[in-house]
């Protein structure tokens, strides 16, 4: 659904990218053929969904017109006049005219006395006008273009053959105007297409011809590189996963002791300062912090401690490097992004840990433990901690998606080759298969986060079990 509503025609771009914009007739036909092939490969020659809700005046086969502008123009014409039969005739006659003038052969006898370049120029203009007429829908524009073409056709006597064809188009257009049935636009109609549609194909594949379908792990073809999207995603997911995992683990490792200490010494200076810092961190936009860090620590004019972008040395790892050496070489690149990934969930988690601990410390059994003479450290780290951990585990299901969502901006600032930066690049280039794949993967990872938090629940709290 996304690719249909989206601006720009992917096939148009893919074909143009593969050629250098040929202008001769042979090349144009070649282009048309290529477009058809790509359309079939991408499944864009199918209806969008299993059914569609449209006005009664619309035909059920409008999706078969492959040029996006022409399809839009036809839709708007139907919207204006509501008589598809006449509009179809008009469109067919225009196509007819366009084909005829493209195949128009100059008879050398007839053009002996005329300047050849002038004729070619006129023919070119006619071609251009006819092409734009096919994708115009406003009455005034159509009238203008029709009169333009007529003027051009009357320039040379031997163009009269074309004039006959064109006069049918004009008559057809007038017929549209005269027999308009606008009321048909206000009657709804549901059209069923069956399972041969883009959505079904995207989900289940088309029997293995071009697409295996999402449920078999096939995300389609990237509009830019023409590679399978799955390859793009699998090659990028490593760094994204590494960063979000590391950051979540790090955030938990720091925030649990800090939150506990703040709660144990409630009202102390440590508690107040950490609370203020957590709150500030929590409200700080990550891209601002990232920019500030880059400005301070990766700026040749200030402190040049860390490299500004990438995840490994610009020339790649040395060939003989062992895994340990590779990690060592990458560490300076990882530190700044990791800070950005970690800090906001760290502030959030510490606040929750502190709150949970405060609640637990007021319970009776803690007072009993103190009364028994259990040392403070044992009370806090043994008796209180387990119960205070529950809320912080609950929010694992929020922290993990936040880390994945945050990757989109931090990865593009630090130019980390992960899914986030790939998604931004895809959005800027209207590369929809990649966008959808990134969305699906991140949704999957989020669900994984929920699962993990559920399992951790059962581990921490023996009262909770999944057995019935």
């Amino acid at each position: 659904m996304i690719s249909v509503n989206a601006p720009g025609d992917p096939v148009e771009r893919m074909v143009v990218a593969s050629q250098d914009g040929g202008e001769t007739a042979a090349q144009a036909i070649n282009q048309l053929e290529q477009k058809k092939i790509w359309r079939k490969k991408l499944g864009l020659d199918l209806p969008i969904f299993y059914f569609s809700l449209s006005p009664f005046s619309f035909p059920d086969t409008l999706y078969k017109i492959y040029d996006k502008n022409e399809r839009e123009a036809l839709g708007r014409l139907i919207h204006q006049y509501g008589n598809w039969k006449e509009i179809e005739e008009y469109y067919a006659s225009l196509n007819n005219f366009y084909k005829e003038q493209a195949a128009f052969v100059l008879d050398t006898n007839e053009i002996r006395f005329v300047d050849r370049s002038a004729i070619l120029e006129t023919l070119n203009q006619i071609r251009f006008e006819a092409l734009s007429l096919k994708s115009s829908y406003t009455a005034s524009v159509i009238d203008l273009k029709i009169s333009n073409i007529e003027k051009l056709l009357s320039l040379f006597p031997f163009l009269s053959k074309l004039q006959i064809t064109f006069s049918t188009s004009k008559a057809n257009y007038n017929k549209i105007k005269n027999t308009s049935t606008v009321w048909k636009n206000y009657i709804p109609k549901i059209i069923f297409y069956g399972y041969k549609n883009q959505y079904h194909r995207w989900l289940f594949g088309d029997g293995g011809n071009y697409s295996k379908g999402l449920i078999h792990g096939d995300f389609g073809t990237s509009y830019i590189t023409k590679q399978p999207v799955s390859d793009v995603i699998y090659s990028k997911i490593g760094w994204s996963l590494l960063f979000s995992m590391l950051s979540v683990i790090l955030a938990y490792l720091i925030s649990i002791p800090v939150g506990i200490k703040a709660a144990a010494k409630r009202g102390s200076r440590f508690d107040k300062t950490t609370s203020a810092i957590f709150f500030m961190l929590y409200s700080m936009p990550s891209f601002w912090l990232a920019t500030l860090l880059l400005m301070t620590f990766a700026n040749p004019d200030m402190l040049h401690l860390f490299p500004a972008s990438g995840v490994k040395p610009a020339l790649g790892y040395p060939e003989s490097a062992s895994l340990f050496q590779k990690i060592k070489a990458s560490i300076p690149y990882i530190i700044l992004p990791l800070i950005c990934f970690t800090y906001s969930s760290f502030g959030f988690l510490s606040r929750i840990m502190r709150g949970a601990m405060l609640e637990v410390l007021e319970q009776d059994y803690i007072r009993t433990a103190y009364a028994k003479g259990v040392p403070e450290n044992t009370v806090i780290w043994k008796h209180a901690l387990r119960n205070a951990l529950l809320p912080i585990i609950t929010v694992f299901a929020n922290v993990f998606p936040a880390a994945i969502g945050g990757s989109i901006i931090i990865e593009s600032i630090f130019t980390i080759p992960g899914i986030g930066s790939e998604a931004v690049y895809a959005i800027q280039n209207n590369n929809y298969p990649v966008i959808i794949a990134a969305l699906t993967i991140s949704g999957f990872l989020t669900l994984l986060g929920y699962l993990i938090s559920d399992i951790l629940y059962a581990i921490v709290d023996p009262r909770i079990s999944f057995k019935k």
Partner: protein
Amino acid sequence: MKEEAANMETSIEMKITNDFSFKKYAWSQFRKNKFAFYSFRILLFLIGLAIVSPFIATDQPLYCKYKGVNMFPAFSLATNCEIKNIDGTIEMLQYDIADWKHLAATTIIFAPIPYAPNKTDFENANYVSPAGKQFFLNNEGQSVNIPLKFRHWLGTNKRGEDVLSGLINGTRVSLTIGILSIGIASILGILLGAMAGYFGDHKLQTSRGAFWTFILGILLAYFYAFSVRSYAIVDSFGISSFSILYELIFSLLIFSIILFLFYWIGKLVGQIAFLNKIVTIPVDSIVSRLIEMLLSMPLLILIISLSAITKEKSIVNLIVIIGLISWTAIARLTRAEFLRISKLEYIQAAHAMGFKEFRIIFKHALPNGLAPAFTAIAFGVASAILIESTLSFLGIGVPPTSVTWGSLLNSGWQQFSAWWLVFFPGIALFVTIAVFNILGDGLRDALDPRLKK
């Protein structure tokens, strides 16, 4: 009988207001929280700034007397002014492109910041620092030190656009997007959450006929409101934000009128023999599944993907997208609250008195169930503002012509030596988000009766 009940209702209400007002109590609690109260004042200041920003940061003067003609360019709705010269020729003064700073006017009063956010000052292009040397082309054509009133107090960016003016106008964009989008989200969230919590899975019952008529009504309402008008809506994107808003509101109006019509038709249809069988609608399950579906995607990625498919970039688009997606937190909290309220005795009493369900929900339950939603709304505005600035920072949210905090930050990211482009918009963003977060915390504390001492 009904009148009696209504009388009783009002008398009960009066008693409540006379004895104790939760609103007054909550307000006094809120005022005790120093941080929250300060941030409330900062918020009022920001809203005020956003409202007057077209008059305090603009290159059009507030007042100008030129050749005997009085003009108020910044306030007037007209875009130009015709001035008759002594020799009879007519001079046309186009307000938005006139060179006011070099106009030989008798009196001229500039706005405090005499620059528009997206207009270039060629003399001070290419990252002029706030503390650095700034230039001004005087009427003789010489480049001199800039007069104090024309100074760029917070510097300029690469194109020579004033940063302070961009900041002030960015306030308007940010607050508009934050508040309006969460407005949409709260309407959706409170409605759905209240219905889910109040009715649960078993309490909303209707006749078979009414149910299917209503489903048909939704289809038809969608058809007439959006399918038939799709070209009008698409075209409005090319015109202006107002026309988009107008078309959308018109469509929504059609949508609700048709739904309402079918609601009544359904009541009639539901009395026919076969169609009057009672069916139960599992509202709670439907809403909960919807929330879970939305929650399974990271918010930012979902919004970015959706804003990528819209044909035109516009602020209205962004507002609608953020609004349609971020209602889940509000709905969850409202649902939980309504689950509790629907079991309270006064609701049962209202039932016993024969009040209609919708009256009970909106008049009796809703005022008590709103407290948690307020907290979620405050946090929601903060996150909406953050999302907007993130999108502008990446250059995929708002149209490139509008200057926002995010787009200013983006221009600073490209040039590290221009610290003022990173520092000031960041501070503005940070303060605004912090204000809404503190407000959310304060509201939670003030509105939670369990914390009552």
